[in-house]
């Protein structure tokens, strides 16, 4: 099972204040443990929302583009992991150990990634095969 673990933003991350050296060192150590345990598939930090944009869709109209920064900082994403584990309980145990040296986290969200089985019959065998080919193609772009 794969999970997306979402770190929420705070005022520091939104003002482009980078983590302290101590925090970076502890996070590096934690990530190393995740890799050694065969759990970590990806781990990334995001730049502040001021560097981002939103594309808003509404019916037939041309989508509207809104440049960042976005106001609701506690709902914004500041970083994420993609972890592979056996169960939700296992991922929760890992996430409880995320270093919080700077007292920076207010909330971390854990979300299961849908697998082919989750899509039911709408994912036809043809689409499923196309999906597998696509993943191989995308891996080359990584």
């Amino acid at each position, binding site marked *: 099972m794969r999970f997306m673990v979402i770190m929420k933003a705070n005022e520091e991350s939104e003002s482009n204040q980078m983590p302290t050296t101590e925090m970076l060192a502890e996070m590096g150590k934690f990530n190393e443990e995740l890799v050694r345990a065969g759990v970590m598939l990806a781990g*990334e930090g995001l*730049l502040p929302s001021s560097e981002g944009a939103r594309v808003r869709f509404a019916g037939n109209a041309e989508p509207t583009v809104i440049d960042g920064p976005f106001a609701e900082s506690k709902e914004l994403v500041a970083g994420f992991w993609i972890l592979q584990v056996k169960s939700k309980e296992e991922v929760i145990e890992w996430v409880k150990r995320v270093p919080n040296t700077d007292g920076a986290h207010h909330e971390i969200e854990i979300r299961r990634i*849908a697998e082919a089985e989750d899509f039911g019959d709408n994912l036809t065998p043809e689409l499923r095969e196309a999906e597998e080919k696509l993943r191989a*193609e995308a891996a080359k772009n990584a």
Partner: protein
Amino acid sequence: MRFLVMVKANADSEAGVMPSAELMAQMSKFNDELAASGHLVQAEGLAPSSAGARLVYFDGEPQPQVVDGPFAETKELVAGLWILQGESVAEIVELLKRAPNPDLQAGTVEIRPLVP
């Protein structure tokens, strides 16, 4: 430069309603184009927040509290993601304007550059 593109949740995605066969076919075609042009690194859908959990941290508390989903603020939740490679936010915006939306559903896609 790499970007995280987040598709926000709606009532259907939170209820676990899977995309229609038409949307899946169109999305598969769109992803193919993104892969062929060298933009696509990863694309995933998330299960509804009812399959997830949150760890909430309180000041002065060493251990976070675990709260099981579902979560209420549907429009702020993430329902799917792409990781795309491109030169600028503007380039990714142009790509995403072409994302299939056969049901003409209102919704927002958020584009955020990753720390290089």
